[in-house]
């Protein structure tokens, strides 16, 4: 196995793959693809393609092929999750303080407490995903329509690496800050053991998920990271699209296993927002997905299919 680690998308990227030493350039190409993706689609880079989309004064635009695919993917999940996954929540994120790349956000001590009523008002009146029309690479959307691919980007790019760049290889895993795509087997021909982070003791794992040789996407979402304080107002980055405010429930974190990284990524956030009962129902209705839900002061809950992959530490 050969692996490569680097920083991108505001997190650590690790690519591990069984390949010959002479094929190592594949990993460089993969890194380059991630950097290119971040360059074009990060919300934090002024002047990139997403910036232009968000700030254009034209309702009709021709976008790149990748942008068109991302938009279609985003709309698909918006519909599949019944509007819970919603990449237009950007305004709310910015209003509560998530307006710079996470590692650049200051303590916020100089900021004022956000006006929650105003946030909600702006949020609810924003142009919605329903207003987005896509025909090939031509899109139409109302002015003021703003997107953030933060909820889909990491999953999308590691699926892309898996499908396009690592397609000649069978045994590998790719991680983007804990969102994973795993395929095949480790050196000893057993599946990959994927550690699942304990939401209360982040340094340790609480379970393993074993892929048993299958290609799986795995992602975890929670409210314990990417948090901040603006004045006396504490926030985190998971916004409930029904209220426009950071989600409030007892779920600490959700790990989803699915057929792709982007599905796992989107569904993990969806379950987190929906909460324990509704979230579990949502996953049970997906025949390619399973989940582990960690709740405050309770034992973790597993969907039925989760048992296929779970392995005790």
């Amino acid at each position, binding site marked *: 196995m*050969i692996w490569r680690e680097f920083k991108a998308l505001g997190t650590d990227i690790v690519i591990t793959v069984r390949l010959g030493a002479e094929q190592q350039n594949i990993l460089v190409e993969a890194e380059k693809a991630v950097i290119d993706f971040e360059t074009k689609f990060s919300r934090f880079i002024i002047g990139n393609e997403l910036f232009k989309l968000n700030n254009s004064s034209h309702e009709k635009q021709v976008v790149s092929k990748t942008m068109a695919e991302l938009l279609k993917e985003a709309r698909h999940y918006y519909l599949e999750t019944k509007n819970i996954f919603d990449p237009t929540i950007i305004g709310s994120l910015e209003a509560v303080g998530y307006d710079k790349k996470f590692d650049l956000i200051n303590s916020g001590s100089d900021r004022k407490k956000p006006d929650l009523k105003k946030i909600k008002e702006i949020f609810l009146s924003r142009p919605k995903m329903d207003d987005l029309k896509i025909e090939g690479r031509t899109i139409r959307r109302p002015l003021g329509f703003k997107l953030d691919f933060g909820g889909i980007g990491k999953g999308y790019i590691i699926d892309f690496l898996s499908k396009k760049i690592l397609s000649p290889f069978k045994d590998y895993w790719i991680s983007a800050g804990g969102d994973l795509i795993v395929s095949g087997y480790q050196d000893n021909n057993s599946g990959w053991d994927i550690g699942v982070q304990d939401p209360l003791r982040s340094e340790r794992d609480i379970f393993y998920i074993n892929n048993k040789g299958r290609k799986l996407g795995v992602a975890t979402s929670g409210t314990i990271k990417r948090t901040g304080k603006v004045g006396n107002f504490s926030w985190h980055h998971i916004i409930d699209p029904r209220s426009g405010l950071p989600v409030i429930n007892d779920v600490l974190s959700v790990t989803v296993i699915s057929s792709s990284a982007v599905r796992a990524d989107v569904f993990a956030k969806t379950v987190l927002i929906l909460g324990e009962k509704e979230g579990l129902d949502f996953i049970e209705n997906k025949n390619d997905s399973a989940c582990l839900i960690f709740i405050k002061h309770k034992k973790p809950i597993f969907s039925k299919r989760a048992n296929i992959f779970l392995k005790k530490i």
Partner: protein
Amino acid sequence: MTEYHLNIKKIDKNTPGIVILELVNSKNEPIFDFEPGQYVMISYKNQQGQDEDKHAFSIASSPVKNTSIRLGIRVGGNFTQGLLNLNPNQEIIVTGPYGNFIFDEKKVPNPVFIAGGIGITPFISALNYVVDRDLKNKVSLIYSTRTVQGTAFFSEISNLGKINPNISVLFSFTEEPGVSEDQRILYQRIDAPIIKNFIGNISEKTFFICGPTPFMKAMINNLLSLGVKKNQIKMEEFSMIPDNNFGQYLRNIGYALSFAAVLFTISFNLISKTSAASTKKNYNPISVSSINQAANNRLIDVQAAKNKALTEQISTGTQTVPMFTSAPTPVPMTAPRPRTRVS
């Protein structure tokens, strides 16, 4: 990349809207080798004692006289405004040199430099280099600005043209009414007939264009209308935010394959691989240089540096970023294992 702690030797604020910094090291020794057309990243401590984020600026001095470097900077955002408050001897942290928008006298015998505004800076380096080396290359410069008063390096360029007879200069002032008996000065925008009249035969020329996006668009149009081939044109964009339509525009005129390949730092070497005329170049719609005179987002700089390193690795097959295998030596390394965590 090595960091150089340099000191300001001189700050020139004589040209409205422009600040020219001359930087030296404490021992007055050569700072680093660079090539005409390259740029550096700089940062400094602001009045609050905080380090400003790094910003990129072209070197506007001769590589031959490398005991100092000079930067010509248009004052716009907070970073460049802050430069006006600096004093001689104050420290500037410099990394570099970077960039492939290079004048190579052996590969380009007859360059035509076309500059808009502060896009002159890489060419100032090249012109001084031609003079210092007493090169025999036939060098033409077309330099367009709004007014005489706002023209950086006006006197210097005029003198360089006098020192080396192989350098021809044409100034164009677009917002200043006037008539000049001096044929080197025009009071109108540059158009195709002016270019043709100034440089004559276009067939053996290589055109370097640097300036704001609208200016570059206009110049490309002019050159193409004169029958200049695409592989004779080398560009570097200087603007606040790259123009979305400009990328499309360039694609429309046939650059699509080259430009779409890499978002950042598409070297002109890449273009030259697909064309017979091989000269060093670079352009892309969101290039590092495009932020030279702008808000210069630190993130973009980081992205560009990463991308450049990766592009070089792919093209050369070398690995400069650590790569570990399962049997590393001499220090054993443990392979990472997959772990899902809250992201």
